[in-house]
């Protein structure tokens, strides 16, 4: 009854594991930021692009994608590669948006020429991609976006601005949604490949509450884009965007996007380790049932998330194909936030010490991590929007919009 791996899959798993073991890159001089979307420096960029290229060569990325589009042409091996990458606890892939969103979008909706032109450099990491969806007036209500695209012969002229653009300062291309019809909210949006190096594109960093310049505002001022950089039909942009957002996790898996290279248990295990090391009232915090209860609860819920993924694959037990996958974003990000809040409580006054303070636990990374958890709970559809989606699509409750 248990699913068994084929001999080919077993060999490939061994091959991935051995390669990752032998090719783990040395640490960077300045520690890497906690996530790929926070990378800002050229040094980190170069280090990570180099790493992604090596992983691509080792067939860990685009494993199952056709050779015609720069992939490795295997079948049923990507999942194995991705799970081994996560297990190995190695640096993340900087082209996370390229792998996670651009590649699936192009594979489903792109022309032959687009697939052949853009996919190979997404896989190697040579061309970094960013996402141009949100605008100052269009966040949770994304369909309200106002950036315009006006046809001019074989070209389009883009005007407007995008915001919260992670990797914007390093990216060569943007997944760009622009309005082609002001009178049709949903069918008036078109999807483009936006070149970031064209005239009229201005990238201005935005500093987060952490102090890091993790994302950007992007101004588009009479930017000219050729029509062959349009993805799918005029007016279908919203549908294309929604189909790739909802299939994001599955489709992203298909090319090897690994958003976080840490084991999901790494954070809670290091917190338990901290509880065993730190004392309060003259005894380890782990021996105090108050802290222990909270820590075990978080471990239990981390295990629940892992077991949810296991149950998703069993049709008779998953309650419908999308019920569990659609919960992943809201539960994962909120769990991470709770975990960091607990870490700060456990550290007490030490939690006030930030990066660079010699007395800070783990160089202030719990504090930095706590603030960065809001990236997860707000971006990519806030937790509130996620709960609307779950209530409406899974439970059939009336739409709140």
């Amino acid at each position, binding site marked *: *009854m*248990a*699913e068994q791996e084929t001999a080919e899959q077993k060999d490939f798993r061994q091959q991935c594991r051995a390669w990752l073991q032998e090719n783990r890159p040395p640490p960077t001089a300045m520690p890497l930021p906690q996530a790929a979307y926070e990378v800002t420096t050229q040094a980190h960029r170069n280090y990570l692009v180099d790493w992604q290229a090596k992983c691509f060569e080792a067939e860990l990325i685009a494993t199952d994608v056709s050779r015609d589009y720069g992939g490795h042409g295997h079948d049923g091996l990507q999942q194995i590669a991705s799970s081994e990458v996560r297990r190995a606890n190695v640096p993340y892939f900087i082209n996370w948006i390229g792998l996670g969103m651009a590649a699936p979008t192009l594979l489903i909706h792109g022309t032959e020429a687009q697939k052949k032109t853009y996919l190979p450099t997404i896989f190697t990491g040579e061309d970094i991609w960013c996402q141009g969806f949100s605008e100052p007036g269009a966040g949770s209500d994304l369909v309200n976006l106002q950036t315009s695209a006006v046809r001019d012969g074989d070209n389009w002229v883009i005007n407007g601005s995008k915001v919260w653009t992670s990797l914007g300062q390093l990216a060569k291309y943007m997944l760009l949604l622009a309005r082609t019809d002001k009178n049709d909210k949903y069918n008036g949006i078109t999807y483009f490949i936006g070149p970031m190096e064209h005239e009229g594109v201005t990238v201005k960093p935005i500093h987060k509450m952490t102090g890091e310049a993790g994302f950007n505002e992007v101004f588009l001022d009479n930017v000219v884009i050729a029509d062959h950089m349009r993805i799918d039909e005029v007016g279908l942009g919203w549908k294309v965007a929604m189909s790739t957002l909802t299939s994001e996790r599955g489709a992203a898996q298909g090319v090897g996007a690994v958003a976080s290279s840490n*084991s999901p*248990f790494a954070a809670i*295990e290091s917190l*338990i380790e901290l509880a065993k090391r730190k004392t309060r009232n003259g005894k380890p915090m*782990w021996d105090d*049932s108050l802290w*222990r*209860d909270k*820590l*075990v*609860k978080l*471990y*239990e*819920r981390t*295990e*629940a*998330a*892992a*077991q*949810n993924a*296991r*149950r998703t*694959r*069993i049709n*008779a*037990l998953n*309650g419908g194909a999308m*019920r*569990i996958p659609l*919960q992943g974003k*809201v*539960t994962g990000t909120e769990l991470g936030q709770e975990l960091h809040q607990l870490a700060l409580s456990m550290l007490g006054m030490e939690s006030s010490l930030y990066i660079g303070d010699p007395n800070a636990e783990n160089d202030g990374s719990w504090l930095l991590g706590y603030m960065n958890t809001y990236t997860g709970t707000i971006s990519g559809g806030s937790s*509130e929007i996620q*709960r*609307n989606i*779950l*209530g*409406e699509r*899974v*439970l*059939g*409750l*009336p*739409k*709140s919009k």
Partner: protein
Amino acid sequence: MAQSQEQSKDFGFGEEQALLKDQARKFIEDNQPLLALRAATKGTEDPYHGDERRGSFDVAAWHEMVALGWTALAVPEAAGGLGMSLVTAVAVAEEIGRGAMPTPLTSTLQSTFVLRQASEQDAKSQQAIEWLKKIVEGSSASLAIQGASGSLEVDATDITVKNNKLNGVACYVQDIQKVDFLVVSAKEAGHLKLFCVELNAEGVDVSYDRIVDLTRDQGRVSFSDVTATCIAESGEDVLNGALPALLTLVSADIAGGCEWLLQTTAAYAKVRTQFDRPIGFFQAVKHPIVNMMIAVDESRSLTYAAAAAYDADSDTCHRAAHFAKSNASDSAEFCANRATQLHGGIGFTWEHDVQIYHKRVMHSQQLFGDGYWQRQMAANYL
């Protein structure tokens, strides 16, 4: 701190399990246990008057369940059973919970797993098999392993044994009005042993608790010089070995009940109109219902994972079972709370079925220990 081990990717839940689960759901739906329960408990609402006894159940349905093989499914083949996995038993237990069905099935399955553990690892293996045979023949059973304090340690019995005679009182015995025999834990000179005894044996006296859960019954059993069969010399090892199965079966029952609470509340939020809209339109209602779903899904996943860990004899099986019961206990509290609240006045009435489920999952929340207890236990494995 090993992570979840490489076990079967599908929890060992295959086509056979899916078919059985489907059969169980249809059988329970067709039986409409709540209609019978309503009829049997009619006029017993007022807690200050009368001395009504709960615990009615559909005996004909029970015989059918035995005939369908549900009680024999986890009995080892050596005792004439089907020798199936805990995951299989969990699939059925989840449906019992979803239907809030009054039945001694879960107690009988739990007793089965204790006896099965004894048959596998104890010197009294042969005696355990004899009692397992009775289950195959249609006997029902329950565990009498708790003392008056309600303590949850596996050796917390008030019963003593000397010269094979049991003396003392066992408390919080589930389904006592429905079962034929008991698996009793008792101490002989401080050493825990397990015994089996028919409920109608000489010296056994039962008094019934007044409990709030309409779907179950419970009682105290006093033993005066009762002659019983020893089925395990090393009672603590056997009970500890079976503990993950006991916890997981209750967790499954809760997960089924919570799914019912979720679906019923979501359905109500689509039809109940206030301020000119179905109340499910409002995010103050919609979002807590989604939170119920998230809670139920965590519990179901941890429950099947715990069952799979037990079936694989994994060294993480105790931790997995404590996680499952911790999570399910918390889901029980949360889902019952939200279901009643979001139904408004009608959910607070005797008339509405939400109260039946609310009380059943509350009762289950405490069985073998709630979330706080489970997390204390799980911590020993982290």
